[in-house]
């Protein structure tokens, strides 16, 4: 699972959960898959992402030195930051780990790179 995908996932469907976002991420095994850096792509994807989950992912991936807690305004001119965001969002691939609902603690395992977000009927 790429951390860009992580940015969209929520547990809000669980009965009684109000926000369900961001999910608590645990990484047990990851790899880095290098891909071509395209500053425009990162820059134009950013408005569609939730920065708190971007920063949250950076914390778990131990990249907080690279990524600020608050989204800077002049990000277009900051190619170095865009490059670091590219690495965080599109190159880190979580192979084993889990996602946890912040409100109920329900755990969604990630194995072989695929998060299992399937809920049982009685949880919805």
């Amino acid at each position: 699972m790429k951390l860009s995908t992580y940015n969209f996932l929520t547990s809000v469907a669980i009965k009684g959960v109000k926000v369900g976002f961001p999910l608590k991420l645990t990484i047990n095994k990851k790899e880095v898959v290098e891909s071509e850096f395209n500053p425009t792509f990162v820059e134009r994807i950013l408005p569609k992402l939730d920065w708190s989950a971007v920063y949250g992912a950076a914390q778990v991936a131990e990249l907080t030195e690279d990524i600020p807690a608050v989204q800077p305004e002049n990000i277009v001119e900051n190619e170095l930051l865009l490059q670091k965001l590219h690495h965080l969002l599109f190159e880190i691939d979580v192979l084993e780990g889990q996602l946890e609902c912040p409100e109920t603690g329900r755990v969604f395992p990630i194995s072989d790179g695929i998060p299992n977000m399937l809920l049982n009927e009685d949880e919805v």
Partner: protein
Amino acid sequence: MHVEETQQKVNKAKKADKKQRRCLAIIKSDCEVSPSAEPTPYLAVLNVGLSNGLTEECLLTEAAATGGKVIQVVMLPGKSYCFFICASLEDSQLIYEGMHNISTIGQQGAVAYLSYIRQLPALAGKSEWNKPLPRGLHIIADFVTEEEESTLLRAIGEDGRTSEGTGSLKHRNVKHFGFEFLYGTNNVDPSKPLEQSIPSACDILWPRLNSFASTWDWSSPDQLTVNEYEPGHGIPPHVDTHSAFLDPILSLSLQSDVVMDFRRGDDQVQVRLPRRSLLIMSGEARYDWTHGIRPKHIDVVPSASGGLTTQARGKRTSLTFRRLRKGPCDCSYPALCDTQQTKVPQELHASLAAQAITLEQQNVHEVYDKIADHFSETRHTPWPQVSEFLDSFEPQSVVLDIGCGNGKYLSCNPLLLSVGCDRAQGLLAVGRRKGQNVFRCDCLVVPVRSSSIDGCISIAVIHHLATKERRLAALQEMARVLRPGGRALVYVWAKDQRKNDKKSTYLRQNKAVNKERTTEQQQRQKQHQELEQQLSNNNPLPVHTNRTEFQQQDVLVPWKTKDEQKTTYLRYYHVFEEQELENLVSQVHEVQLIKSYYDQGNHCAIFEKISKNSL
């Protein structure tokens, strides 16, 4: 000169020996056949068979020219060899001497090689001529005299020619009396009798049937179809529509003999219909066997001496007499019964609602998990209009594919951020191996932030949901994750696999039907028999026959695995009627339909989430 000729002969014989050995080796790897140096009554034609275009007629004509008599010909489908059983050793020798390395019946005049064999291979099977007739089938020879034959031909010629029912089909001329048989629907319209009723010349026939008619639904017919077959014409195997006509169906053959094939699943019986005979199809023969005539110029028929011989066809006119049913059929042969195949059981909707989750679990999720790899191999080419939709987004848009399967649409447009989800772990793993972003979920509960997605596709997914409420909920879930202004594309399988009389790709791939080697009815029947053997047959829903028209909306569609077991899995589908998808979209909150269309057997809709401002 003389020496050269001798040398050539020797070379030719040597070549034939070599060929003979090589062909025998090939046949041996196929089936148990041992060659014999001494003459036997069994002959193998080593290098020509059905697979390279040899016909039984051609083979028999060639054998007859040697003076040898043949009792049975065994031709195996898809094989480049065939066998004879000869009447005696003498006959066998005549044929061998006359044909081996001489007869040019191969492709493009290639010479045939023969060999004596000790016995026929086990899979040769029984002759189609020694089988009992289907139950309910009777043939009454000399049912009319030659004078009556001429009278009848005159009567139908004079009366019918000007009637509205005159027409010419692809392979034969037809005329109708009483009611027109409509080939589009394979039925009649009982409210529209023709001006011409059955000619009174036919009235001589009915008193002759008194001994049979006590068990029939009728004593005189009200519909007559006349078919004129020139040599080479035929009629594809079919059963007369159950709901259109009562039991039995009568057919009088005039002017020429012909051979008719009766089939039920794998059972096949050939029946000779002599000139001036009456064929009676009643009960099982009328309802549960298909009948047809192969488009040939020559028939193979049993000879008076117990062997086989060929018979050239002449122009043949058949008079088919039937009586309209004017209501649903209540026969006890459901496999080919249009009434029973299209009837939706009343309790079905209630039971679908109660069992939706179990049904989807067993007949969708579990099946896709089991067939994932094979299924994925068959799903590689993106449908052009789906690709087009994906290309309509601005670069760097976020697109979610709900029910992404093996993820074939996730890499269509590399300028997008594409994410896919599916229920089937096996299919997700295929996509994941290709480096795609995927997660596992149900399409009714998509774990994605509301209003976060620019585009959404769901291709061939919601037709797996067993109730209207669930299908609607899946669309509503797509609407929820779309941002205002975001667009979604949905594909579902259409019940109607034809548009403007054009068959969909799905139907076009049924090559056997399209080349008229068989019919949809026959395939349905064959499958019905196979499934009876394989499955417990207490399926809650009718089982669809692959690559034929859908008979119902809620069906189980078989998937046959490629491995040796050839296991059949049944997938549940709800195939959509026209406008059904549009109606469903109209019930989704916060969206409007942009476009809907029909694409290769699918109903498709594009809808957009309305921006808050315009609400």
